[in-house]
């Protein structure tokens, strides 16, 4: 295995483009190293991105945010303004693994690992986050939801890499939330994850995005679920419709972490609970 520490994205792309065999980018390493040690993926070329300028920055970008690809979960949680703007995204990232994992794991890594159960991904999708991608054929901006294409797979071409994550301006009277279900209180992979991002006009929901994780091969943006609560004050009937729409959108599998029935049911429960939190946050922000 070759180990590289390029000092620019251009250098990193150049190494990746010419690399033979399996290439992996290393940021926090909390997935890459597990796969390496368990003989699941042994990269031939490992490109450590942490020496590239600016990768550890959380910066304002207009009224939104730019988050570097090596920013750890712990650094996000410790960032007060980011946390108050996008509590759902920050909490989702904070749910990934232990305190130790938080010291290393990154949003970009969580996304590129391609796990359908990645906690931060539904939160980013609900938040309409985008990523900047650079590669041998130049740079592009991609919606977060378009990166994963299936378990362990992404839409990134050979030599392409993410250079930063962008969260849009929070806007007024808005809030987001992410909840996941795990059997224990910590340390598990999400059995179901649900993010809700909404905006209010007075008490009425004017805009909403509901995203689900771990209930399909990729993250789901559930438009029917959003429709169920847009125009409402999140009354009980709206919540029931939201839950039903979330459950209806599920296309899960039965595996060691949960059954089809369980995931489908709990997706609705979490949608309801997350929507209430997002709604409270939006109200508090007004």
């Amino acid at each position, binding site marked *: 295995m070759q180990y590289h520490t390029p000092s620019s994205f251009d250098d990193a792309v150049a190494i990746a483009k010419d690399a033979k065999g399996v290439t992996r980018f290393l940021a926090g390493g909390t997935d890459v190293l597990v796969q390496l040690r368990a003989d699941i993926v042994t990269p031939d070329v490992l490109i450590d991105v942490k020496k590239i300028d600016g990768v550890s920055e959380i910066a304002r970008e207009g009224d939104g945010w730019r988050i570097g690809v090596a920013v750890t979960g712990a650094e996000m949680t410790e960032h007060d303004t980011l946390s108050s703007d996008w509590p759902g995204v920050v909490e989702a990232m904070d749910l990934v693994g232990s305190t130790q994992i938080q010291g290393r794991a990154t949003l970009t890594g969580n996304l590129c690992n391609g796990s359908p159960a990645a906690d931060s991904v539904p939160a980013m999708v609900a938040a309409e986050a985008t990523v900047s991608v650079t590669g041998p054929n130049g740079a592009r901006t991609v919606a977060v939801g378009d990166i994963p294409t299936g378990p362990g797979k992404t839409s990134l071409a050979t030599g392409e890499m993410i250079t930063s994550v962008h969260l849009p301006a929070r806007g007024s009277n808005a809030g987001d939330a992410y909840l996941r279900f795990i059997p224990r209180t910590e340390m598990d992979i999400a059995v179901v994850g649900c993010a809700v991002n909404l905006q209010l006009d007075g008490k009425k929901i004017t805009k909403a995005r509901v995203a689900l994780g771990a209930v399909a091969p990729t993250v789901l943006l559930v438009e029917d679920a959003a429709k169920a609560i847009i125009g409402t004050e999140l009354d009980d009937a709206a919540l029931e419709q939201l839950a039903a729409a979330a459950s209806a959108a599920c296309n899960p599998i039965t595996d060691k972490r949960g059954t089809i*029935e369980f995931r489908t049911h709990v997706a609705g429960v979490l949608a309801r609970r997350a929507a209430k939190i997002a709604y409270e946050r939006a109200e508090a922000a007004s």
Partner: protein
Amino acid sequence: MAFDEVKTVDFKVVGQRVKRPDGMDKVTGKAKFGADVVAPGMLHAAIVRSPHAHARIVKIDTSKAEALKGVKGVVTRADFAEGLSGGNLDVLENVMAGEKALYDGHAVAAVAAISPLIARDAMKLVEVEYEILPHVTDVDKAMGADAPVIRAGTADKTVPEGMHANVVRYHESGHGDVDAGFAEADLVIEDSFKTEATHQGYIEPHACLASMGEGNGDLWCCTQGHWNVQKLCAAMLGLEQSQLRVTASEIGGGFGGKTAVFIEPVALALSRKTNRPVKLVMSRSEVFRATGPTSSTSMDIKIGMKKDGTITAGQGTFRLQGGAFPGAPMEFTAMCAFAPYNLKHVKQMGFDVLANRPKQAAYRAPGSPMAAFAVESVIDELCKQLGLDPLEVRLKNASAQGTKASFGPTWDRIGLVETLEAAKAHPHYSAPTKAGQGRGISCGFWFNHGGETSVTLALSEDGTAQLSVGTPDIGGSRASMAQMAAEELGIPYENVRTTIADTATLGYNEVSHGSRVTYASGLATIKAARNAVKILCGRAAAKWGIDEDAVVWEDGFAKPSGPNAGEFDPIPIDKLTQSMGRTGGPIVGHFEATPEGAGVSFATHIVDAEVDKETGQTKIVRYTVIQDAGKAINPAYVEGQFQGGAVQGIGWALNEEYIYGEDGRLQNDLFLDYRIPVASDLPMIDTVIVEVPNPGHPYGVRGVGETSICPPLAAIANAVSAAAGVRLKELPMSPPRILAALDKQANG
């Protein structure tokens, strides 16, 4: 004090919460565990394992692995002794597969190389050709007519005729006439239960360092019993037992799982072949796939009760799957099942069943927790349906001194009633439960064990003591041993150093299991110390020119026993040891025996659980352990045993399980998906130490290590039933199972 006197009062050191002598090393990282040692010229090894649940090994080609640079040797079954039989053959079959791989993870070859990475690379180059055979992993399916035969001819003659060849042993015991008993009952409940296999889950993977010379060898390993390792390894390598010296490292948890050997013979074989020291450390995945979890079970229980709470009869059938080898502890499951209750009519049957899973190993009160889960669940349901208080019903039927045990004998002094009374008096039992929460209780029982034990206590010139015991210290036993020695010698606790001796320096010691260490090594320590005291008194007597019997030992001084003995100034221990070389030679007390008086231990647990009815998630909100310790030598570590056992039980009840796929492969071989309790899952675990002295120990000690895992499974099932209104009959009570039960109840 007379040699055999029982002491129950006026303890000076015993009963104190002393600091453990190995504490400093363990908080600074200095303590040497299994994987922490190196030897000059050491090689590293890795084991090739079967990916198949059941397969004939057609061919093993090691040539590519051997050709890799840095590889020094490869071993297969051919490198081990031939002609073994019985238990030794089973252990060897498990350590290194012969004709067949019997489970996913079964070892088939091993390599030694100059670095761990090269060893791992070489492992992947060993080519094994398999002929895949049909497999079975479920206990009920393994007994079914169409189940594949795993190891033909294994069954012994206790197995009733007509059973599948995978049923290899049968147990039946009890007394009275259960049918007559059921006829007397006002309510009879009959139900079936299942529990999945759980792993001991010690945080330290198995590790060892082996060094073989010509016909002899040295082995360093983490084990619960190094004499057992010596015996088994010697057999598997064809060595004389005394030629293999085994040293027990610090051990990072065992819970029964480190009473067996797995990698030690392999490291020795590689060392013999390469003539270099070889270190072998398991990965976590290997620990889960190839070391002993507990048995999975399938159980049928029938209990009858009168309206006044009298249990009229109990019957249980217990089917235990113990992997591809005989030995599932079904007889303990059977014998423990009804042990807490004084029953006129009782019958219990056990079946030992083979399946394509790793050979089960002991796990904390092996077999008992599952039985308690099934029986105590049914008792709870009977109480509920008859409108009776579950604690009063248990008190009414409780086993006590003089009643007949469900497995036959008449009980000696036991403390079940005392734990129930303590539970009744505990504020936890009377506290109101909050909305959404339910309370459950359960009793639990374990036999405890004595076993072969040797201890030596050598006095130093300055009057301090060196105590050598042979039972590895898993949870602070060196402190308890030093406390007992100090108590007898009348010297400060700090003046005793306890060492876990290697196999070359002490007589045989049985494994640290059966909650026997504080009981048996403790008893041996007390007797070795009394032995040394007798010599000390003799030296004083000689000095004073009086009879040896006229000297007594008090608080570290030899004194004349009374006015008739003469007027002499007491002599302190250090004055006697200072001159010991000139007054008869070194003073050493020792004791070797197989103490047979291990008192049984009962416990009662109370638990409050909260169930999220929308997700099926259970949260333990309050937990109290009440257990009979006989006499707590170091209460802090007794509490620790209570708490640790309870939490292992919580894990077993709620989330831990072996999950096999259709392909017979273990799907959750990492701590990620083998979900042991984490700190945030739990409340504080309250404890009450009940002390009903064991007549078989000089201070009344009963083993405490195991019983604490017996009640939690049922106590939590009973609490879940109270909180959510559904009775879970299958473990773990994972959220999908609870939600499915709630759904079934709601929709009929």
